[in-house]
């Protein structure tokens, strides 16, 4: 069947409404080919869905469907396929790639550079007369439009810098490129011997490659940029007084409405519980995975996840007024201080550009005084500009940073962009969150109690625990399974929310649940028949290698303190275990201010945290790191995310960042050293296009080779 015929058949199948709507859904859990297949098949099986296409890079899926299919239908279909999905806030808000606008100029520069170089080789090997003129004209024909097109990113950036009375790396590049092109064209028209199209295009090619590498790093980080908007539920099922229900988008909710929040849904607005009782996962707001109970009359916040039973919630605040939006605003304000950071390449070019321009001007003046005539003085001055054009400088920073980021990625440390490595290399003070950062963020049963359990008790405990999704049960089941315990055979298992699990084991009633008497800390009571109740204590354990990592950081000259939103008692325990000073009961504002105080005292602060409550602090700190288990907001705000459980990632990232900066400085030295050699030649009027081309590519290769040393991570020194 031809494509047209198949399309006809589709149209016939739905004759009344063939109008297709496009919806984009975020599917954060999709990470492999199998997932993509399941997502696409799960959606395509839905009647009314024309096609579904998953995008693994953006962790999203685009669906074309008729308007008979609603967004909740699609989310439900994905849930059946085993994936949690949230509608993306808006298709327009989809992050724009930073690499893609550079790909076309890069391709044009590469094409033109290769062809012009081909022609230049024949000129250098002795073509003259009409042949040389023909080759120069061909070069001009290819080169001038290609330079105009491929140079646009530089011209635009230089122009906007100049308009604001500033200068950046792109200003000397643009001036050099424009003058060199003009001179070459003039030479071509005048049947001259030397045209510089090849060198100019090669310069653009190398610089665009550096730019593209830099953008590629930033793109990797973009995937989580709209995480905050995505996490707020974009709508809710609203109940009218007569019991009728209708789906409202989050923006259409008004205070006073009653929304019914099913288990597994996120709240779209702040409110107060009218009916029902459940547990809410507030990990988005606090980073804590333990769900908190919510009953009638309790305040609940937008962005929290309802985990157990449906709730009816009266809306109190929506959209911009919610607690979630408050934190988002605080983060946005905090992030502005960081955007004022000036990257090392721009700092270098502030010194470099005036030096280059005065050298060229001096050369021109010198040759004029020597009586060489305007034309010759101008040609030599332009040769100086071309030879000093920061070709290797343009590669010096991005190549080193991309290689370092690649090496770190192999160790499970993801760096979001190049400036993150620059800032990380400068930190001299660390603030670290407790729950979920210093600790695992999930309850681990007390090892001594587990060891004291009889084999049959352990088997029953594992069997009971494996039936529940409660965090304590999950922790217990994992710890017992790790001890090699096999689950006992149970019958008649049922779970009462808020109470625990009960079942029959060989006609003996057994239960695992909340202890009768409230004791300090977290605990679960295991009862088997009439035997004495066993109490299993839980604690939030420190991450492995915590002490080693903190000691290593201290050796690197980075003292740490704890900054936690948790209560004094819990923080004191961890502070005692780690030997760090601590501040407890810190609100997001407090954390933000603590960073501000230290920065004002001249410290460069590294913030390590995971929750939304750490978001403003992560954004305000000089550099920030989040564990992979962090909330999306934490991961979005942080510069670096480490995926493993070990805190050793912290000293490792800092060491690598410092090494990278050493290599960057070496690269600068190499690139400038080459200029020191070549500039006297150029000023003496001895540089030909051939020498320029060779020198340019050699210095670029040297810089790239030096940067590649960073990929050998095993020789790592602090």
């Amino acid at each position: 069947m031809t494509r047209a015929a198949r399309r006809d058949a589709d149209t016939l199948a739905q004759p009344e409404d063939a109008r297709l709507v496009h919806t984009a859904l975020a599917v954060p859990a999709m990470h492999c080919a199998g997932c993509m297949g399941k997502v696409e098949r799960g959606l395509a099986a839905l009647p009314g869905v024309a096609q579904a296409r998953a995008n693994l890079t953006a962790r999203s899926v685009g669906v074309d469907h008729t308007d008979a299919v609603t967004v909740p239908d699609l989310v439900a279909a994905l849930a059946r396929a085993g994936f949690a999905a949230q509608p993306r806030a808006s298709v327009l808000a989809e992050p724009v790639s930073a690499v893609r606008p550079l790909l076309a100029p890069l391709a044009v520069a590469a094409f033109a550079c290769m062809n012009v170089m081909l022609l230049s080789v024949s000129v250098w090997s002795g073509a003259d007369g009409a042949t040389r003129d023909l080759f120069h004209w061909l070069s001009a024909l290819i080169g001038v439009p290609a330079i105009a097109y491929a140079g646009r990113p530089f011209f635009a950036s230089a122009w906007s810098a100049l308009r604001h009375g500033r200068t950046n790396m792109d200003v000397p590049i643009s001036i050099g490129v424009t003058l060199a092109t003009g001179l070459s064209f003039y030479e071509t028209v005048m049947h001259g011997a030397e045209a510089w199209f090849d060198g100019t295009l090669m310069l653009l090619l190398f610089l665009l490659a550096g730019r593209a590498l830099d953008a590629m790093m930033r793109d990797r980080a973009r995937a989580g940029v709209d995480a905050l908007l995505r996490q707020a539920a974009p709508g809710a099922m609203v109940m009218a007084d007569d019991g009728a229900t209708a789906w409202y988008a989050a923006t259409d909710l008004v205070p006073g409405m009653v929304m019914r929040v099913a288990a597994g849904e996120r709240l779209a607005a702040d409110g107060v519980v009218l009916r029902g009782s459940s547990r809410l996962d507030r990990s988005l707001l606090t980073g804590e995975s333990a769900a908190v109970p919510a009953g009638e009359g309790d305040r609940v916040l937008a962005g929290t996840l309802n985990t157990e039973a449906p709730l009816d919630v009266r809306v109190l605040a929506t959209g911009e007024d919610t607690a979630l939006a408050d934190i988002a605003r605080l983060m946005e304000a905090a992030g502005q201080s960081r955007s004022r950071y000036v990257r090392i390449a721009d700092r270098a070019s502030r010194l470099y550009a005036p030096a280059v321009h005065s050298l060229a001007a001096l050369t021109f003046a010198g040759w004029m005084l020597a009586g060489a005539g305007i034309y010759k003085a101008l040609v030599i001055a332009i040769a100086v500009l071309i030879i000093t054009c920061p070709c290797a400088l343009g590669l010096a920073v991005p190549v080193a940073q991309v290689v370092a980021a690649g090496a770190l990625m192999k160790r499970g440390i993801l760096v979001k962009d190049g400036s993150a490595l620059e800032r990380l290399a400068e930190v001299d003070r660390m603030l670290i969150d407790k729950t979920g950062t210093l600790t695992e963020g999930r309850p681990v049963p007390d090892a001594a109690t587990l060891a004291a359990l009889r084999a049959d008790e352990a088997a029953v405990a594992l069997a009971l625990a494996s039936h529940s999704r409660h965090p304590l049960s999950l922790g217990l089941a994992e710890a017992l399974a790790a001890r090699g315990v096999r689950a006992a055979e149970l019958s008649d298992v049922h779970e009462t929310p808020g109470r625990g699990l009960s079942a029959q084991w060989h006609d003996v009633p057994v239960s695992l649940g909340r202890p009768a008497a409230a004791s300090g800390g977290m605990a679960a009571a295991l009862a088997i028949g009439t035997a004495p109740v066993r109490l299993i204590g839980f604690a939030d354990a420190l991450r492995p290698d915590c002490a080693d990592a903190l000691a290593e950081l201290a050796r690197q000259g980075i003292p740490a303190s704890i900054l936690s939103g948790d209560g004094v008692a819990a923080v004191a325990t961890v502070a005692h275990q780690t030997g760090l000073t601590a501040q407890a009961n810190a609100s997001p504002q407090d954390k933000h201010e603590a960073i501000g105080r230290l920065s004002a005292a001249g410290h460069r602060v590294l913030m390590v945290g995971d929750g939304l409550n750490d978001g403003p602090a992560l954004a305000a700190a000089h550099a920030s790191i989040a564990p992979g288990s962090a909330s999306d907001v934490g991961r979005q705000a942080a510069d670096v995310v480490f995926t493993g459980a070990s805190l050793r990632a912290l000293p490792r990232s800092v060491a690598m960042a410092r090494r990278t900066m050493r290599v960057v400085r070496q690269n600068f030295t190499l690139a400038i050293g080459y200029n020191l050699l070549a500039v006297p030649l150029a000023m003496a009027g001895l540089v030909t296009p051939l020498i320029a081309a060779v020198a340019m590519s050699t210095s670029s290769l040297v810089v790239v080779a030096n940067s590649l040393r960073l990929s050998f991570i095993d020789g790592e020194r602090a």
Partner: protein
Amino acid sequence: MTSIAVLIPIALGMGLIGLAAFFWALRQGQFVDLDGAAARILIDEGEDAAS
């Protein structure tokens, strides 16, 4: 000289074809989901491959 007149247009033409092919691919969205494209070859397409 005549061989150059033939060879240069051929060389340029081939380069231009490559450039045009790249631009076509860029416009077709071939570079939108690089990770996905790498993973997609592993998907077992069953009878519902007609999506």
